[in-house]
């Protein structure tokens, strides 16, 4: 065990929370935001479908899927930048698990 510099530990937490905050803002805008402005958005059409309907039926879901994959990839990169080794994680995780 070695102590991680406080600056480094805080930087790790900040990088993770910042990206999650950004994703959740996008999540809110494409779902709740679009519903709040459904009436004015309905005058715009996309692929023959009014925009408010398109976002509900396809646009929001596609954005959600994309955000989840971006999160998985970005998180892996952050872990790598801070020298986290997934093999080590696996070993620690299976040892630390409470089984009873």
């Amino acid at each position: 065990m070695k102590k991680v510099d406080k600056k480094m530990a805080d930087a790790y937490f900040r990088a993770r929370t910042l990206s999650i905050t950004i994703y959740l803002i996008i999540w809110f805008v494409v779902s709740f935001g679009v519903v709040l402005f459904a009436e004015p958005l309905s005058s715009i059409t996309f692929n023959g479908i009014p925009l408010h309907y398109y976002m509900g039926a396809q646009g929001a879901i596609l954005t959600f899927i994309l955000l989840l994959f971006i999160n998985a990839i970005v998180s892996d990169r952050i872990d790598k930048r801070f020298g986290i080794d997934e093999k080590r994680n696996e070993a620690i995780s299976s040892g630390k698990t409470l089984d009873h």
Partner: protein
Amino acid sequence: MDAQFLVSLSLIVATFALYIGIAFYNKAKATSDFYVAGRGVPPIFNGMAIGADWMSAASFIGLAGTVMLLGYDGLAYIMGWTGGYLLLTFLLAAQLRKYGRYTVPEFIGDRYKSNAARLIAALATIIISFTYSIGQLSGSGIVIGRLLEVDAAVGTLIGVVLIAFYSAFGGMKGITWTQVAQYVILIIAYLVPVIFMALQLTQNPIPWISYGEVISEIKTLDQELGISEYLVPFTEGSKWQFIALMFTLMAGTAGLPHVIVRFYTVSTMKAARWSGAWALLFIGLLYLSAPAYAAFSRFILMTNVAGQAINDLPAWTAAWIDTGKLSIADGNNDGILQWSELVISNDIVVMATPEIANLGIFVIGLMAAGAMAAALSTAGGLMIAISAALSHDIYYRSINPNASEKKRLAVGRWSIVIATVIAGLTALNPPGAITQIVAWAFALASGSFFPALLLGVWWKRSNGPGVIAGMVTGLTVTLTYIFLAKYGGFTILGIIDTGAGVFGAAAAIAANVTVSLLTKAPSKEIQEEVIDLRYPEQMTYKDGAVWMNDEN
């Protein structure tokens, strides 16, 4: 017995044989197999298993029908049931995995150091999963009822026997791999008819692109006939109902015990994040198709069925009238079936559409097998959650801590059988449409687990009395609102029973925060444990600093 019956039945029997074979091959031997499948499931397969676990009869049978009947307002279900995965994956899944327990009540009990909190959470798990499984059993009743051309209630009873036997057998380990197979079958069954319909109606086999065309034609038909407005927002309920329902389904998704437990079956936090991403991709295939399905069905009904002579209706109508889910009444006695005279339950739209579109007996049989896969896989996951709450959180952790593994497995299996039978009896006379019953389960989860887990993971000051107050308040507010709105006609801002979760969650968070602040802070050890969840496995938060585990 006609050819249709034989084809559907043999497809169902063949897929069942496959599931039972897989469950038998992976039979649970140890407790950790029974609850968390030995914790080594690869993320991509876990994603499929989450998909099957998650996509229930409500998604498979009910979703497209709900969109078809509600138009734009039905899309709250589509966005709500997918958007919740972001809350779950970003805010809870990885952290709960690092904590490493068997069940959600166990996390709550240990994080808040409170036996009472664990018991309340176990009770909430049972209530939520039980409500949810009523929807599943009533769904399998519709499928079996149509297949055997008997009343849906008789179909439900047959479904009970199948599900009880099947989920008591394998435990989590068996169920994980069966669910992977069930995902593959249910998604093929869903996509085949929608692709054929796209080809029939638009000459383009890619429904996600081509249904825009059908949507514009529906818009024109709506205007010509003046009967309904499919695309106009908030015709079936207020804007606030839409938002409340969407929130309820999202927060409920993040708090459903049988889905969260799937994140315990992977090896690390990283694997939990990837599981969430794969899961939503696999789920998205169905959720992106449901609105296309709805548009195609509605278009066919509007152009081929409405406006026909009553005596001249196609053969499929008779079979569905037998199940009690379709009624046709010639209100104005003109011998013609008007659009308004066709009363179709939203639960049968998906199952009936292949027949409506004349897609042939094989596709119809495939749909039946897919619907059974959806109902069975979710019911299996729910029953495991109920059985874990009873046998692990209540029996083992509170009543008999010295129970042998064998005894605990036996308690687990028996609780599955009993829970299925009771849920089945309730499902004989379901209190609502499948999507509505399922929405109540989500409302209860968003009023109880979502606040408890969110604060438990992200707010170290939250304590035992706080979480107890939160869960009790949340459940009470949600249940009261559901009953008042459904039976008492009471609503706030036009929010009906299915949107109750928004009040439950708000009340639970307020109660948790207030009571936590008024009572003693959790011990230093617990507070550090909570901060520890923000870092990957290799980092540990202890004594006010982060430590890196770099030994080999």
